């Protein structure tokens, strides 16, 4: 057991995992992800296709081997940090005055022919060092600590990764992501989640009032705007959804993802010598005389560029139905017994369909907290290096011997330079 924990806590494992995770992450970028199984079998041939599916390379980042490596990384990170924490805490709490004045690390000596009290005053008041109060054998010991707290900053960085991974996990378990497709004028609460067949129904509705595309003078798109109304029981809230400006309501966020155009047909209907103009779209059937329902079943673009609409006329009383095709300039006549109806396509009006991505992710807060921790932690690690400086002042009959020394967590090379600076200051200014 101890062996396993030792293995899981080792820095060797950590470094191996960094590089293995880097290697494993490559696979998923080489293949299109999340396509149906058939896609891989056709594109890469049977053998290679089956191999891809067997190893879950089609969904690499959610495969058992990737998730397991990520999980091992998380465990290694946690155990490693917990093991080292007591050492860092000890360093954090350690009293710098405890040091043996003859054994200061990185020792550097200089001799000054100046008055001891003057030197001591300079060290305390100008250099802001603290004097060790207890008795020191042959002189006076001073110390100064910098960024003591930063012994713990690396744990903030490690903790931030735990937050981010946990946040991601929460999102996968308790969140969802899907599409809400709305045609102008339509109201819906039905979300089609990605990768699942069952729709999700929100407890409020969204109505698309209007969809607008703004263009630059050269014809490039400038802005896509969905003008929507949230309908929640008796409450109505108007809002605009743009790219980079999502709408958030009840922890659910709506993003402008895409759009499409659907045609709306303007048709004239002639029955018993009476002619009416109506618009027909695929959302709602048209009703005439409370007797006939007209459905737009489908439409297609003909090679010549004109649109063909397939309509279905249902007699509500008998259930009898007839199907016909409508093209501009070519009237369509259907007979129900002795009743004759003539349809004529007068024109086509485009109707926009806005595709909104809908998301609920309760993990985002934790992920963002992780981001903040990582930034603060890295700043602390880089710019607030824990350092301690000591000055040991030893008067003797010829003058004053001064021993300087210091220790740092990482940047040991620059310490020597800092000590040389300190020595210069003492020589010149004290």
């Amino acid at each position, binding site marked *: 057991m101890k062996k396993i924990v030792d293995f899981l806590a080792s*820095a*060797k494992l*950590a*470094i191996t995992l*960094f*590089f293995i*995770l*880097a290697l494993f*992450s*490559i696979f*998923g*970028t*080489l293949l299109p*992800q999340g396509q149906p199984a058939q896609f891989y079998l056709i594109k890469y041939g049977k053998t290679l296709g089956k191999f891809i599916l067997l190893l879950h390379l089609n969904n690499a*980042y959610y495969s058992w081997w990737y998730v397991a490596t990520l999980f091992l990384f998380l465990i290694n990170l946690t155990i490693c940090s917990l093991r080292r924490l007591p050492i860092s805490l000890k360093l954090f709490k350690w009293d710098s005055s405890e040091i043996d004045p003859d054994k200061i690390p990185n020792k550097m000596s200089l001799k000054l022919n100046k008055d001891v009290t003057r030197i001591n005053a300079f060290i305390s008041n100008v250099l802001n060092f603290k004097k060790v109060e207890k008795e020191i054998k042959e002189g006076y010991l001073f110390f100064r600590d910098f960024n003591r707290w930063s012994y713990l900053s690396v744990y903030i960085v490690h903790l931030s990764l735990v937050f981010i991974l946990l946040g*991601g996990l929460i999102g996968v378990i308790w969140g969802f*992501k899907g599409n809400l497709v709305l045609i102008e004028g339509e109201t819906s609460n039905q979300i089609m989640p990605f990768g699942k067949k069952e729709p999700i129904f929100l407890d409020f509705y969204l109505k698309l009032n209007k969809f607008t595309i703004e263009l*630059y*003078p*050269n014809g*490039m*798109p*400038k*802005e*896509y705007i969905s003008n929507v109304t949230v309908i929640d029981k008796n409450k109505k809230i108007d809002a605009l959804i*743009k*790219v*980079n*400006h*999502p709408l958030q309501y009840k922890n659910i*966020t709506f*993003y*402008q*993802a895409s759009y499409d155009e659907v045609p709306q047909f303007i048709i004239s209907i002639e029955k018993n010598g009476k002619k009416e103009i109506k618009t027909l779209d695929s959302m709602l059937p048209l009703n005439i005389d409370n007797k006939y329902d007209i459905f737009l079943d489908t439409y297609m673009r003909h090679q010549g560029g004109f649109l063909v609409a397939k309509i279905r006329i249902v007699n509500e009383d008998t259930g009898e139905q007839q199907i016909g095709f409508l093209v501009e300039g070519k009237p369509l006549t259907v007979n129900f017994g002795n009743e004759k109806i003539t349809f004529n396509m007068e024109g086509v009006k485009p109707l926009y369909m806005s595709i909104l*991505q*809908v*998301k609920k992710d309760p993990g*985002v807060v934790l*992920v*963002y907290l992780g*981001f903040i921790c*990582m*930034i603060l932690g*890295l*700043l602390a690690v*880089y710019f607030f290096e824990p350092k301690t400086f000591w000055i040991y002042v030893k008067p003797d009959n010829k003058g004053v011997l001064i021993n300087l020394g210091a220790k740092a967590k*990482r940047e040991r*090379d620059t310490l020597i330079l800092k000590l040389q600076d300190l020595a210069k200051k003492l020589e010149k200014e004290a």
Partner: protein
Amino acid sequence: MQFKNFFIGCILAILIYALSAFGTHTLLPENSLLFSLSTFIYLLAGIIYLIYWIFKWELGALVGSTIGWSGFILNFLAFIVRWIQTHQAGFGYIPLSNLYESLVFFGLCTAGIYLFLEFKLPTKIFGSIVFLVASFIMSYASLKADAEIKPLLPALKSNWLIAHVITCFLGYGAFAVAFALGIFYLLSSKSNFKNYLPSPTTLDNLMYRLILFGFFWLSLGIITGSVWAEQAWGSYWSWDPKETWSFITWLIYGGTIHARLTRGWRGKKMAWLSIIGFASVLFTYFGVNFLLSGLHSYATPNS
């Protein structure tokens, strides 16, 4: 005087700017002209640094550095001019949005990080590779990317774009310089180069510091990109190839830092990791755009 190279470089850059303004009879010369000029100046600086290094021409250090500074300042001026010209085109934006703009900014970051670092360096020979790399990046921009100013697509209209691009390229610039040092380190073990290079320990330390610096900015770059993606597309992470490759780069450098801190990896291993890391940076930046498809398609040459 310590900042002689900087001041003379500034004056040179302003002179070159004034000449090109005079030559084209306008106060604001075409930005792509200025970017091309700084490409040539970087190349010249690189060559002079190279002569200084190989032939031990002592004055060359100052000349190379001065010319390098003038190229950097001109590159920066070109950035400002392009910014103004986007406003003149009727849809102002900070020019950090397409392949061309990001490449010339990459050049600016690489040159800038090196030049500021140079004040603290014991020798100036690294300028040779750094400026050759910077000039290569810039000429690649002029030859392969579309320099025309085009309005921003809706997805790019976000303040996060600016934070994202600046942080990423500061990281990339630092990694580029660390890569140059890695090459120098490997050369330093060859006997015929030994006399021309600073001690391996100096190279090793500098390389490590640059990797630390780059890692900080890369982390910030990934975070800002993530927050932006969350706002624009509703997903802070979607395993898009660009995102994944930035994560791969992050893992390589993260592993490098930990290997040094906990296992004491030094020297050759670090030099190779710095080279592999930079290869990953280049793949994140170019390879993903050209070879794999994804959300960053606006950074491809023909879009």
